[in-house]
């Protein structure tokens, strides 16, 4: 139908990528499980699974990109993609909301209860005598030992500026794309990717400092748990976003996208903005407050 009616919805007729993806996924996750259980040889099959998944992503998206460039997608297909991407991002937001929820719950309720506030008087008296609630904390059992926190206005603040700037550069790239000015498009994209990379590098730096100098680890009680889970998943998303943007940049260099049809670019930009906004939440609730 793609051929004979311009406005017909494009329905592909078969696809092998999903099953490849499922195989990759099961190999990756089953290996991860074996690995966690101590079978360290499973890390090789884990990598194999990851490789298959990456292969699948390239194959699948490559196919979509070729179809897109051939113009078989109409506006309605475009709109499906938009809805799909928007809701995917929504699901990611809920994933982070879960960890933020844990942070708020622990900090606003659990720690005070352990310290005897509210309904926790008996808890404190009989189980954790002497524990004074405070934040950051590794709990009354001082799990993971002494630690110090990362000051908000060091690397984290720099990283905030970096991500905010990258939000601007991606928008500038978008303007360039809409104005059909390819060179600035590529340059602004390159700047965004670069900022993303710097962010990740600084984040790694911060982690090293936390582990080696501050004694702050994933095992540092509830503070360490929420801190590393939130910033860690965020860091993963930045890395992923940077890779996506890199692909978009390479595609732009190949002459993909037109001023009025560039959904992939927009999807990447949405994703980047989402990562950005999550960081703002992190910066405020994890570092500053």
């Amino acid at each position, binding site marked *: *139908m793609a051929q004979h*009616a311009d406005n*017909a*919805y494009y*329905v*592909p*007729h*078969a*696809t*092998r*990528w*999903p*099953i490849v*993806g*499922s195989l990759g*996924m*099961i190999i990756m*996750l*089953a290996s*991860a*499980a074996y690995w*966690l*259980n101590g079978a360290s040889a499973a890390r090789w099959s884990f990598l194999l699974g990851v490789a298959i998944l990456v292969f699948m992503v390239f*194959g*699948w998206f490559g196919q979509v990109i070729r*179809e897109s460039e*051939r113009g*078989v997608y109409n506006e309605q297909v475009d709109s*499906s*993609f938009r*809805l*799909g991407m928007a*809701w995917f991002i929504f*699901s990611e937001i*809920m*994933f982070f909301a*879960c960890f933020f*929820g*844990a942070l708020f*719950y*622990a900090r606003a*309720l*659990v720690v005070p209860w352990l310290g005897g506030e*509210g309904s926790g008087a008996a808890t404190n008296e009989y189980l954790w005598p002497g524990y004074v609630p405070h934040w950051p904390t*590794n*709990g*009354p*059992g001082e*799990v*993971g030992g002494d630690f110090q926190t990362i000051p908000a206005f060091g690397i984290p603040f720099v990283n905030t500026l970096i991500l905010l700037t990258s939000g601007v550069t991606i928008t500038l790239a978008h303007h360039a794309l809409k104005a059909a000015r390819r060179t600035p498009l590529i340059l602004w994209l390159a700047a965004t990717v670069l900022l993303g990379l710097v962010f990740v590098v600084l984040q790694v730096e911060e982690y090293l400092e936390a582990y080696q100098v501050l004694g702050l*680890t*994933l*095992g540092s*009680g*509830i*503070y*360490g*748990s929420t801190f*590393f*889970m939130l910033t860690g998943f965020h860091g993963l998303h930045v890395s992923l976003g940077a890779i996506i943007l890199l692909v978009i940049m390479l595609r732009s260099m190949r002459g993909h996208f037109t001023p009025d049809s560039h959904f992939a670019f927009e999807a990447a930009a949405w994703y980047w903005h989402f990562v950005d906004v999550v960081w703002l939440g992190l910066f405020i609730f994890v570092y500053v407050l």
Partner: protein
Amino acid sequence: MSSIAAHESDALRMPDAQADHKPHGFLDRWLFTTNHKDIGTLYLVFSLLMFLVGGTMALVIRAELFMPGLQLVEPDFFNQMTTMHALIMVFGAVMPAWVGFANWMIPMMIGAPDMALPRMNNWSFWILPFAFAMLLSTLFMDSGGPAAGWTLYPPLSLQTGPSFAFVVFAVHMMGISSIMGSINVIATIMNMRAPGMTLLRMPLFVWTWLITAYLLMAVMPVLAGAVTMLLTDHFFGTSFFNAAGGGDPVMFQHIFWFFGHPEVYIMILPAFGVISEILPTFSRKPLFGYAAMVYATASIAFLSFIVWAHHMFTVGMPLEGELFFMYATMLIAVPTGVKVFNWVSTMWKGAMTFETPMLFALGFVVLFTIGGLSGLMLSIAAADLQYHDTYFVVAHFHYVLVPGSVFALMAGTYYWLPKWTGRMYSERWGKTHFWLSAIFVNVLFFPQHFLGLAGMPRRIPDYSPQFADFNQWSSIGGFLFGATQLIFVGVIVHCVWFSRKPARARVWESARGLEWTVPSPAPYHTFAEPPDIDESMVVHADEVSH
């Protein structure tokens, strides 16, 4: 991988996609398909299989509980059965079955050529068999499968042996599958409706699924987060659920039920939709209060986000918390009541006939309401201090799930089976299936109310002899109910392969809706060109215009 590259151009070379080309090879047809009907079939077959597997586990439970004393299994294996039974029924049977219905029916009901994202559609199905293979494989590991209940409460779940990581990853995979499935449903409904199919003209099944998809999008990631925290607590020394580190085991319960409560509505809202399709057809009368039904569904969905802690009345929440969650939970009775009353009013002064789908729908209305009313009793926090974690709760949720969701699935299957296969099923066996199911499901679950009130806790492999009689009834009911489901399998097999009676396009004389305007069996591709919607085709045009 050149074959993949060669393959991709097929789609483009296909001269006329509207012709009824089914792919030829078995693998091409089922493994690589992007066709919503094929994928729907895959989902339905898979979920039927899982229903049988999960049901068999239920029968292990019922067999051990047939009389006091341990006769068949060790307590730990019993707990594995309870846990796996629930995980499989919830994530493997009921949820995928509804996705199967969505795949088959939504495009046909809104005049779309297919789902909005057909390739992803294939993937969201093909993750599931792998996820469940991994989940089921844990039963064969040395340490056995998960045994901490489907709710996976820590710290108990953290005592699970090597199978733990597999379980967590299986749950992740199910979540990914559900998220992709619901993205597809949302995109299809929002983007693929034929011109003229306005939102308030959509069949209720489409409406309920749209809202279900929103629920799924909001809560599946939260479940993924919750099990991820379990994983890191188990393997990486985090303290989310450990008081010594400043965490709290109860925090898991809050997160889990933030997912879990909407989850139970995920299983029931599409059921409401199917029932709202079937009752008007066999009452020969338009659905009563279409708009109210839509608003009620939306209200239930909204409320479902703020009632989760009614599963936790005994954890020692502050009083204000208990009161808030009690009131919010009670409120759900209002929109649900609107639905029940509207269904009864749909039947009122109709001209009813009682084909199998209608029988299951009527069974649904009665038995779901019983389950809903016991739910309301549970929501009364002070009384729940007694009911909680007893068989009264087990009775409640099986009433809403088995003669609720599962009966609605069966009603829908009988209703649309002729459309799917092009042949009529055996009405006589269908009715037999209904009557036996309706009787035995009550023998199975009604006595559990008594057991719970008399003090039998749930999740126990053995009990004091005072509970023996009703457990025996329940087990007998369970075995007979299970055996009855073989009739269901038989009716389907007969209809698909052996029935000689062709089905008309409009299978039921007064059925309305676009799916009845296409031939039976529905051609491989339908509505490649959007249909012209005229008033007679859509279900609800009349009411909305006033």
